[in-house]
């Protein structure tokens, strides 16, 4: 064990401050320290994407990042994307198009998809499949996940147009 480090994060808009060992992984910080259990652990080797969060506007697999590396960062998890009173269009679209089954990959999947649509609001099917290839789903075969993301993109673009 080594000396604990002083770490500050902004998670889902809330300031967090704590002391942690340098080896503490961000997923552990989120799930065990902050009780944010939306992001899940599936592989601990960056392959499955169940732990995906957004850090300073980029998708990151929180199972292979130390909390210390995220010091000072803004972190968004599924809990920060939308809740009962402000559902994100992706959350609605995944339900509407049966984009999930066991639900274990879903928080990471939606978190990644939200970032993908930030980067590219009008993705083709190929771009969605490529952009989501870091997130594994064992249940759906992806077909309805792709459909859900396409539907959410359409919905978000229509809302944007209406607002302009």
């Amino acid at each position, binding site marked *: 064990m080594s000396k604990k480090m002083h770490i500050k994060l902004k998670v889902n808009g809330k300031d967090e401050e704590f002391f942690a060992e340098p080896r503490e992984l961000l997923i552990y910080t989120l799930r065990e320290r902050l009780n944010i259990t939306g992001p899940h652990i599936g592989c601990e080797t960056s392959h499955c994407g169940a732990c995906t969060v957004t850090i300073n506007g980029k998708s990151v697999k929180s199972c292979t990042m130390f909390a210390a590396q995220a010091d000072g960062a803004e972190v968004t*998890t599924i809990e920060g994307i939308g809740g009962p009173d402000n559902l994100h269009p992706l959350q609605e679209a995944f339900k509407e198009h049966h984009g999930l089954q*066991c639900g274990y990959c879903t928080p990471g999947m939606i978190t990644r998809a939200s970032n993908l649509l930030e980067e590219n609001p009008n993705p083709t099917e190929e771009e969605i499949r490529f952009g989501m290839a870091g997130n594994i789903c064992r249940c759906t075969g992806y*077909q309805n996940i792709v459909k859900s993301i396409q539907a959410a993109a359409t919905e978000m673009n229509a809302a944007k147009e209406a607002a302009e």
Partner: protein
Amino acid sequence: MKDDITRDERVENLKGMGCSRKRVEDARFTQGKGNYVDDIKLDGMLFGDFVRSPYAHARITNIDAAAALEVPGVIAVLTAADLEPLGLHWMPTLAGDKQMVLADGKVLFQGQEVAFVVAEDRYAAADGIEAVEVEYEELPVVVDPFAALQSDVVLREDLVAEDGSLPDGAHGPRKHHNHIFTWEAGDKEPTEQVIDTAEVVAEETMYYHRTHPCPLETCGSVASMDKVNGKLTLWGTFQAPHAIRTIVSLISGIEEHNIRVISPDIGGGFGNKVGAYPGYVCSVVASIVTGKPVKWIEDRMDNLMTTAFARDYHMTGKISATRDGKITGLHCHVTADHGGFDACADPTKFPAGFMNICTGSYDIPTAYLAVDGVYTNKAPGGVSYRCSFRVTEAVYFIERMIEVLAIKLNMDAAELRRINFIKKEQFPYTAALGWEYDSGDYHTAWDKALDTVDYKGLRAEQAQRVEDFKAGKTRKLMGIGLSFFTEIVGAGPVKNCDILGLGMFDSCEIRIHPTGSAIARLGTISQGQGHATTFAQILASEIGLPADSITIEEGDTDTAPYGLGTYGSRSTPVAGAATAMAGRKIRAKAQMIAAYLLEVHDNDVEFDVDRFVVKGAPERFKTMKEIAFASYNQAIPGVEPGLEAVSYYDPPNMTYPFGAYICVMDIDVDTGVPEIRRFYALDDCGTRINPMIIEGQVHGGLTEALAVALGQEIAYDDMGNCKTGTLMDFFLPTAWEVPNYETDYTVTPSPHHPIGAKGVGESPHVGGVPCFSNAVQDAFRAFGNTHTNMPHDHWRIWKTASDLGLHG
């Protein structure tokens, strides 16, 4: 009284069977509010994890935990010596064998559990594991099951008598100290005679490789022993929570009423979470020892290396036919690699599962099957990975044998299937290996599939491609994969299906609340199948209350009626039937109440969507909502208050879903990369409860089939090192590799199921694996290929092309 809505609108409002009702589970899952076992937190909870063996076969001469106990945060270290006084150092397996919970003097596979370190958190547990000193003495390793049956090396000394003789195993006599059982079905001599005298015989040897269900959530448990009240609560990734409660009671001696088992949300199962694992037992013991709740969660490497492999069948087949293609006999022998302990998850009387469904969808008059189970230095398991017990192996076997026979006969494989299908009028059909198929219409399904994809056109295109390839115009070959499968699911009739003596019925209990909503509890447990959505639909149609007003609850043994859980596509065939039957009991009582309220005789009212109406006077009725309230506030002569029912359903037979799949694939012979151009899947699962969920199940099952056929395997080297312990080595397809699927259906209801449903979750995996494999093999048929083993990864496909001389 008049309605302001039409009958059709009343039907629609129920959201009953047949509609694509959106899932009620999704709100929590999409908002990160699922409650999986690793999300459970209890005051003072400790974390346990294993010291695991680096060797595949070794004696353990010493375990020294002293240094580990000095590590900050480490509370206890358990070894077999600590469990022995409790009789918990070994546990019974589902297959009639026993298995070490913690290594008792030796280890039999790499990754085997040696000691359990309990600490304040995961990091401390990991530090503690590092500090446990284990001395091993390496033993010769046996990884090949054929070599195991010749080897002097004894893997299981505990199964050899002191005089060197071999006591019978759970399934009869054993031929060798590394032999587990021989299991036979059908008629040996008549089959051999038919084959020996046949006009045409095709033979093939094939290896269905070892793989793993690999759900995204690994296995885990949280045990909390309340010493004040003597109650044990055990949360875990259990596909069969009641069976786990009974097992825990039997091996721990804690009375069953003092054990509460809870399966919370489960992040996919696919068979991985049927078995009982050392981690579950150790979390319970650690909680008893420490007096605190103890959590155990596998990491991915633990999961792939130790809990629940699937398949690993070495199969040899002979199939005989007349010159014009009528099949006359089938012979199959399997050498089954079960690893170090026989922990296969099968009904007790079926040590090779339902492998004897291997005559498939064909009218084969004579057949024989023999399976030899063998111990090797590999992980135990042998679970049904997204299939009913060993049905994937059976269907792969027959769908390959058909292709091999077609080559021998120089016949089209689609036509060979057609002329051998069991005919519609032959159902119920008793197969040569004993099963009674309930219903089917194979010809209709096959014709629909072939027409939809323009099969003749595809074959013409393929022939042209071969010409172009030979002329040097292309380097891509085209494969057309065919598969027609019959599943056997819904285990099963108590007369021949049990697990550890527990009959494989299932159950449903319904309570109607006064204001016309309801809760129903079942003995099954969803792992993504959407039971809370679909079982409410069954009930809505049966009892006339809206599905949205019905809560479905599963997984808590203190509240749910006893059932055998969810695997082998048994939830809809068995618990779904129990749900319908319990619903009918509710309806029968509601009829009496309605008649009383309407002041007519019981037989003068009839059920109509959401109400009972007086026959011939539809304006006189009582809605189910009104009846529900009346059941609580009226004193009806001869009728008890309340509206509740329970059903324990013992199915009279299995159900036999079937389907026709066609895959079109382009294969680059220089890179070995297959590109799936088209995949058409027609499923007949009987009555369809929720088409949206059926399609989702088909997409998912096909993707798991693609994985197994095209790359996914658990592989070992000669030292018994598992070479595929991470997702870097173990293939899970991403969105990038997976095609879009076309789904289709026919409906042939099961005649013995109350709503005619057959189950669908596993069909696409069972039928999909041979379809993908046949597509790869078919691409090379014109160049002399008859069979190559899966998984068809890029290298193996390239090697096939190379071996056939296609690289110039």
